[in-house]
């Protein structure tokens, strides 16, 4: 079972009235979608408004999602249309192209624009998170750091990581979880648990 199947199952649950399942999808894709929309909408506050609006539109359109494409590809199209409509409503001209196709939506790597246009508050928060995660990564034992790097940055499956690291899949599973927990222990105080906090 892969990432797409997990998304699909969450969508099915949301389609059956489980709003919490849709929240899990929002939690998963809010940063990725925000980065995408920053290419269309320059103002950081507006990016978040449009991101929020795109998620709500996606929720309302859930009955029309049939699973023919990946959830994020479908969400991407809704977000692009939401941003263009927003710009038109604001009297601004929507770009004719975002510079990449929806096929690239899963993988494009260009966060510079959002970084450049981030508010000082967002920039500070981003730096704090990055610094916390980097410090935690440096303290990790090599095998844990390698495992989570191969998973999160290289996108390898557990089977592939087991092959690369020459260890059983169960060991890979354990290393990735321990790495996440170790980093999360440092990150949780920064994120907080209050829903009204920044996260």
């Amino acid at each position, binding site marked *: 079972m892969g990432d797409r199947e997990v998304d699909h199952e969450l969508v099915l649950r949301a389609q059956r009235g489980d709003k919490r399942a849709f*929240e899990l999808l929002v939690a998963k894709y809010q*940063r990725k979608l925000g*980065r995408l929309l920053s290419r269309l909408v320059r103002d950081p506050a507006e990016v978040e408004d449009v991101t929020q609006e795109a998620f709500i539109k996606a929720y309302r359109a859930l009955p029309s999602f*049939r699973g023919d494409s990946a959830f994020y590809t479908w969400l991407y199209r809704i977000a692009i249309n939401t941003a263009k409509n927003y710009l038109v409503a604001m009297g601004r001209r929507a770009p004719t192209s975002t510079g990449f196709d929806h096929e690239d939506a899963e993988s494009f790597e260009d*966060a510079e624009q959002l970084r450049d246009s981030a508010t000082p508050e967002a920039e500070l928060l981003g730096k704090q998170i990055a610094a916390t995660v980097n410090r935690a990564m440096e303290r990790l034992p090599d095998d844990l750091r390698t495992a989570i790097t191969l998973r999160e940055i290289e996108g390898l499956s557990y089977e592939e990581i087991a092959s690369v690291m020459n260890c059983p899949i169960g060991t890979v*599973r354990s290393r990735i979880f321990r790495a996440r927990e170790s980093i999360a222990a440092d990150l949780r105080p920064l994120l907080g648990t209050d*829903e009204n906090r920044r996260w």
Partner: protein
Amino acid sequence: MNERISRLMDGDVDAAEMDALLSTLKSDAALATWSCYHTIGDALRGEPAVTRSVRAAVARQLISEPTVLAPRVARPSGPAPWAWAAAASVAAVTVVGWTAYSLIDATPAGFAKAGEAGAVRAAQARQITVPADYLLAHQEYSPANALQSVGPYLRDVAASTPLRPAVVE
């Protein structure tokens, strides 16, 4: 619980386990862990932070949204079209192969018969002397004769043609 969330994020669960796990993800603590783990992944990939939680804002707005109750998508329960095509190809090859194989007597007895037949043909290939008058009398029945079937009804005929006088100038 967190270990299972970690596996779920990576798709390292089967369908039954995922169903059970997603049902337990309704608590705020589980959702916070899910969000935190995704934040770690996004940070490692260089995804920038958002200045406020879009998820929290969406969650607040979802409260006032009518609950979505979409009809269940009827997913095809049978095999995919390519599977039918592959099965038909395999079946065709099997039928043709089996038919061809069944026509071949590959048993040891069959090989022995084939050997005997070769020996018989070799033995029969000796020179036979047939009288020429016999061949002449039965020529019309020869397989090489293209007119074999109508041979008995043919008669030799002759016609005399008057010679034209030579023209002498």
